[in-house]
């Protein structure tokens, strides 16, 4: 997702994080098939819009979320 251009809607293809993190992401609305919008990049973090909420995650995690 780090490579995705900012401000455009993308679809989550696969999440390559460990079990616990994957569940937490699901609870926050990030799961395969879901559309999300990377909004901005700041201090090694990516701000993502998911449905009506905004989430911030570090690049290390954002790299594990594959989008198309």
């Amino acid at each position, binding site marked *: 997702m780090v490579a995705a251009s900012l401000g455009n809607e993308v679809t989550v293809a696969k999440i390559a*994080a460990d079990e*616990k*993190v*994957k*569940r*937490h*992401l*699901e*609870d*926050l*609305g990030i*799961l*395969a*098939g*879901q559309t999300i919008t990377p*909004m*901005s*990049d*700041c*201090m*090694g*973090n990516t*701000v993502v819009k*998911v*449905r*009506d*909420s*905004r*989430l*911030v*995650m*570090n690049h*290390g*995690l954002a790299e594990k979320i594959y989008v198309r």
Partner: protein
Amino acid sequence: MRFALAGNPNSGKTTLFNLLTGSTAHVGNWPGVTVDRKEGTYRNKGVKASDACERIDIVDLPGIYSLSPYTPEEVVARNYILDEMGDGPDLIINIVDATNLERNLYLTTQIMESDIPVVVALNMTDVLHRNGAKIDERALSERLGVPVVAISALHAEGIGELMNRACEVAKKGRKGSSVIEDSPMAEAFGRIVDLFREKGLSHPVFRAVKAIEGDILYTGDNADVARRIEEIKHNIALRPELEGDFEAAVADARYRYITEHYKSAITRPSGKSGRSTSEKIDSVLTNKVLGLPIFFLFMFLVFHLTFAEPLMFTDRFVEDGIPSPGVLLQTWMGNFTDAVTEATAGLLESMGASDWATGLIIDGLFAGVGGVLSFLPQILMLFLFLSIMEDTGYMARAAFLMDRPLRRFGISGKAFLPLLMGFGCSVPAMMGTRTLDDEKERRLTIMLMPFFSCGAKLPIWSMFAAAIFPNNADKAVFAIYFIGIAAAIGAAIVLRGTILKGAASVFIMELPAYHWPKLRNVAANLWEKARGFIVRATTIIAGATIVIWFLSNFDFSFSMVDPNSQESIVGVLGSALVPIFRPLGFASMPDAWKAVVAIVTGLIAKEMVVSTLGVLYNPEVEGDALEDDAAAGALAAALVASFSPAAALSFMTFNLLSVPCMAAVATANAEMRSGKWLWITIGFWLLTAWVGAFIVYHATRLMGF
């Protein structure tokens, strides 16, 4: 009647709880975990006293995104809802943020699976309307099958209606329902539900969903049931992209259902909506260039307003300047405790109390507890600012701004705020680590806490800076803060490489919408902190001061000696410990045992270091070196004779890095919930203090001091 309040973080749940319970709220702990359990009572004035709904106990469940068993908060909420503790709720009020409906309903779909009556409190509908959107509560209610009441927790609107509907529904009972019944897994799901019904288990629908997810808890110890569930699940064909992940399949089914059935309940204004106010604020506060400087400016203001002796620039206009509100309040608090102490001393004298009783009560108990209480105003000031930051939503931004700088030391941005609080007081700071999900990271943060010089250590720095480094007092104090931060960085790297192996946990956080702080929430938070602090000061610290007083006034044959003399128990113990401290410089001076005794009493509470030194080094001078100028001058002269600059810095460093106080030890014990880790932590603190002081002593000597 007992109602539970459940909802996402940032959904306004705390505001609703404070509104419903007011002054009746109290905080406890859920059994076995360090998760706050908040409870209070709601009085319904509209109904007769004989009505079961006249008096309703409200239990505030922790803010959660899901009822899966991945965090202690989720486990607590789930166990409570399923009545595992025998005091389950009659109804769940599910607070839902209307401005973030779909994500909030994810939790609702899970709550609906229990057999407990539910009412949905649709919060922030006013904000939604302001944005030009409309929400159809009736349609939502029909589709969910439970009442939906629009409220505004912030403006206290719709609360009466909410509670009346809740009461009606609570008396009726409900059967659980699940979105899985509407998914491709429906057939298999139905068979598992039947299986649980046959066994007569409570909440069969909820248990069946968990069974599909593979949650072992709900297959119980019945091997037969477990086998049959596996058989049924074996026949479920998941879509290939789910890779056989049943939990993902259930989550997917929930979101699909929500999008399909509930999305249409909201009518949004047509046309592309612009950026929200929060997004505009964030473009400044989390700006790539401006974000960090603005954050540091806020932090500087917070500490300046809490601790500054004269506020910046004010000494140019008024002689001595205007003290900061924190210092002003502290002075008043000090005057108050002094007045109480004096009055009590007078009373004891008029009663003809014996010397030892007066000594115990005045020099032991009152001096110790009074000293600690005098920090209360500054600690509360610090918390006032922190809870404003929390309530406005800025805290989440601060955490993410600090994530990258801290990450290379194995700490995530979420740990930054507790560490920052450590400059105020380690005790609430350690409690603040509860926001960290990762156990190792939590332990690490607690272990680093003392290195952030707390308010109680400030008098030690002031005293030594004035006595030993009169021309460089501010630099000496700055050096101590710097040594502390350097020690924290070094310790974090060492701990992450040894006993707490691993990297900082992944960082993901919701950015809540900004809003003005709510007085009710901030006040409730402060009151909670103040009460906790006072309770500790009057129990743990009072107990410890009495013990110390006893040890410093009696010898091993339990006969009274001169206070704090070498013959007293602490004097003997201090002398015995001198060899351990000899390599650190300050224990090779004459009367070294005195410094060692001060170190030891400092383990109880750092306030005691200065008072111990005062008593030991100039027993002839009457008065408290902290308040009496003449006493302070005499003490300074005595200190110069006994401490070289290098020895003084070494002594300060040891106090900075060692066990902060007994209250902090008690808190670390409660937060770590492991005797083994408590001892590791105490040992780690003492070892770091010794090594740190050793390095500082020899480094300053090499530099020619």
